[in-house]
């Protein structure tokens, strides 16, 4: 009952605000959605006492029953889903509250809150899913909500373009996921987690022949599922949508594109740990992609000027960390980082939102600066978020990020060394761009025009209170949740499965001191450099950019990924489309296909209508002929 309330109260909020929003007004919509979200968050906090207990399932009702293929709606409650529910509900609640202030001047408030609550519902369905179909439902639900929210200001062409881009890029990933679900059903003859996980060891090292080639069964399934995760979590090479998604309102970026939805991929991998453990090749792929993304996104983050884009690339990069951890078998470290990251990244985004709000919707850091005295609370909150992000000792990021770096060092999996190197480098870069963001935004001389500077003001309490709570979370979450890394796996109580010879969580405590200190060095180096560049001698960056022109362009253009995709896929597809449309479709198919068939159909239709004369005796006659025809058919054809 608790969990039913937890999952469905956001849906109720979405329904009320979405259907009757115009009727009950802005204020009531806000109150209803926030109130129901508060209820959900409360349930999630109460639900935490479940931690470490036996997993169980809350059956709701049967979804479909086709010839022995039964799918139920059910909520799976175990440690993993409890942690996820806690993160999703609480952060969503804080962001709902924040949005009251941030969206105060918008003219479609009920719609916004309805979308936000619907998103939360879909995300909760995703994390509590008991079978793959329900997972897919939640997966697509959050996709739709994300699409709607990115394009929330649908009158802006850039927002529509970003929404469409996000949707299409995700489609590629979702196709992989759909194939994965289908393959799972094909192999296991079930889509229920329990049955799949129970049967997984039996299928280890079996082969599956497709199109003449033969694949390792579990590797194939895991890779397909991971393709879905790549799309949703914006990993290489499907990362391009995430930075553009910043066109949505800032609370959306905080909730969906930083704290919750994008972590669904990590959740998927952790949820399927019983399968990934038997598929080392798939794990290697996860490690490689995760580490590469972590490094790549960090480099791009160095030179971006839009404050939200910097944080977006940072999100991309941090997700890479999580995947790298999951890839080397330290799923717990990945989920731990997911949980801490949710707090500090939401904090950073909301802080950025507060700055943007104060600066009259200015997002370019080059036109900010020197405002820290005017926004003391936001400033403090942002620093807490930044310190947590770079892993300052004592903050939440310190616990989780260091654990990942140590785990990659300690692991023996393929690509572990590669991952370790890239992650440490990425840590330096992270510290640098985080410092750059803080210094450019808050310090130095004001670069905005005087009119804007006059209006700079601290945000209203309704926005500041969530910031303060998230700051507390960013400081304390790591210390509170450090049990998650327990090498015996007592915390997870079977929700995450690792093979007996996977001792990563234990071995990572025995790494050399140099490795333990590496993140700290990276932090000091990165922050120091950024201080040098942007506070001490602000002319340095421009000189350096001039000196290393090609590299600077390369990073600024995000490694030319968008251009590459444009040249590789978009243009050829358009060209092919045009050829098929002009030549094949109009010339061949239409003439012989729809048009031809349509003409024949119409002719048949006219004949059928002509039978209907309107005379009763014609009708009676038709009936008699009918019975004679039926009789003759039976006597001469059936009986023969």
């Amino acid at each position, binding site marked *: 009952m608790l969990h039913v309330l937890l999952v469905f109260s956001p849906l109720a909020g979405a329904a009320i605000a979405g259907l009757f929003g115009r009727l009950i007004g802005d204020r009531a919509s806000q109150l209803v959605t926030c109130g129901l979200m508060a209820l959900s968050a409360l349930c999630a906090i109460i639900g935490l006492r479940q931690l470490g207990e036996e997993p169980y399932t809350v059956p709701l009702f049967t979804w479909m029953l086709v010839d022995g293929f039964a799918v139920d709606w059910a909520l799976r409650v175990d440690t993993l889903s409890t942690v996820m529910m806690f993160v999703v509900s609480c952060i969503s609640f804080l962001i709902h509250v924040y949005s009251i202030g941030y969206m105060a001047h918008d003219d479609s408030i009920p719609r916004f809150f309805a979308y936000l609550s619907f998103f939360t519902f879909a995300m909760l369905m995703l994390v509590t899913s008991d079978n793959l179909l329900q997972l897919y439902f939640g997966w697509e639900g959050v996709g739709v909500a994300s699409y709607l929210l990115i394009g929330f200001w649908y009158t802006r062409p850039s927002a529509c373009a970003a929404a469409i881009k996000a949707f299409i890029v995700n489609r590629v990933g979702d196709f992989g996921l759909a194939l994965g679900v289908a393959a799972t059903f094909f192999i296991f003859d079930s889509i229920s987690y329990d049955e799949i996980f129970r049967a997984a060891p039996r299928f280890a090292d079996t082969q599956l022949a497709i199109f003449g080639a033969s694949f390792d069964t579990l590797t194939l399934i895991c890779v397909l599922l991971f393709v879905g995760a790549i799309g949703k979590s914006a990993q290489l090479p499907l990362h391009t949508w995430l930075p553009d998604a910043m066109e949505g309102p800032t609370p959306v970026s905080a909730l969906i594109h930083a704290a919750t939805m994008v972590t669904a991929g990590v959740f998927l991998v952790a949820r399927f740990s019983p399968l990934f453990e038997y598929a080392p090749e798939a794990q290697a792929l996860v490690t490689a992609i995760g580490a590469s993304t972590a490094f790549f996104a960090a480099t791009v983050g160095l030179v971006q000027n839009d404050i939200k884009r910097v944080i977006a690339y940072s999100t991309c990069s941090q997700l890479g960390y999580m995947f790298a951890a999951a890839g080397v078998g330290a799923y717990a470290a990945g989920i731990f980082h997911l949980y801490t990251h949710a707090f500090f990244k939401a904090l950073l985004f909301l802080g950025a939102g507060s700055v943007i709000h104060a600066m009259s919707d200015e997002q370019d850091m080059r036109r900010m600066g020197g405002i820290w005295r005017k926004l003391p609370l936001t400033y403090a909150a942002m620093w807490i978020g930044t310190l947590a992000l770079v892993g300052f000792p004592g903050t939440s990021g310190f616990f989780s990020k260091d654990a990942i770096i140590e785990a990659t060092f300690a692991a023996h999996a393929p690509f572990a060394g590669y991952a370790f190197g890239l992650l440490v480098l990425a840590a330096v870069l992270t510290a640098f761009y985080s410092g750059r963001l803080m210094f450019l935004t808050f310090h130095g001389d004001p670069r905005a025009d005087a009119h804007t500077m006059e209006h700079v003001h601290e945000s209203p309490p309704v926005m500041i209170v969530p910031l303060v709570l998230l700051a507390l979370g960013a400081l304390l979450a790591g210390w509170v949740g450090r049990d998650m890394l327990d090498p015996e796996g007592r915390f997870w109580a079977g929700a995450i499965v690792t093979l007996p010879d996977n001792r990563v969580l234990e071995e990572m405590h025995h790494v050399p001191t140099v490795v333990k200190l590496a993140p700290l060095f990276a932090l000091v180096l990165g922050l120091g450099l950024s201080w040098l560049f942007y506070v001490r001698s602000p002319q340095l960056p421009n000189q350096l950019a001039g000196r290393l022109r090609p590299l600077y362009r390369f990073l600024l253009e995000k490694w030319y990924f968008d251009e590459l995709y444009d040249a590789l896929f978009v243009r050829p597809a358009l060209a092919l489309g045009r050829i098929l449309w002009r030549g094949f479709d109009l010339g061949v198919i239409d003439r012989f296909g729809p048009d031809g068939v349509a003409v024949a159909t119409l002719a048949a239709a006219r004949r059928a209508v002509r039978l209907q004369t309107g005379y009763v*005796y014609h009708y009676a*006659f038709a009936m*008699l*002929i009918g*019975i*004679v025809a039926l*009789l*003759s058919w039976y*006597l001469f054809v059936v009986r023969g």
Partner: protein
Amino acid sequence: MTIALFVFYVFALVTTASAVMVIAARNPVHSVLFLILAFVSSAGLFVLLGAEFLAMVLVVVYVGAVAVLFLFVVMMLDIDFVQLREGFLQYLPVGALVGLVLLVELALVFGTQAVETAAVDMPPTAPPGVTNTEALGSLLYTRYFYLFQTAGAILLVAIVGAITLTLRHRPDAKRQDISRQVHRRPSDTLEVRKVRPRSGI
């Protein structure tokens, strides 16, 4: 026995022949009259079977009421039957063909396989000492109670339907209202006036 058989054939022949004539007769009044003949001769068949009650009912209800009603209706509706029959020849070939095929098929059915008389449980005849009417009544109200009730419901619906489709409340029609008549007081309608000579009312 032979007399009974002879009578049976006579009645059967008359029934069939008059049934054909119902359709074939040009004059609709003749059709109805042939219909009455068909009813009467089938009543004769019922008598031969020992079902006097059914025979009487057939004569009383069908001949006495239904057929006579038909006759009135046909006479009152002034329909140009020649015009109605105009299309007859046009459809005759197809109709004849269809009828023929049906006939052949049914002949096939009945010709190849005789009715399994053993399988047929013969209609229960009245036990000795019980009259035809009584036997029928006791069956209708026991074994066939459900169907009897249903028939009642159908008739009720037919009445309701007929009223629905035809009854019109005409405001100008004069009806007898006994209650109003009884409650009528002389004071309502009568006024006694003294009339003086030569001055009018």
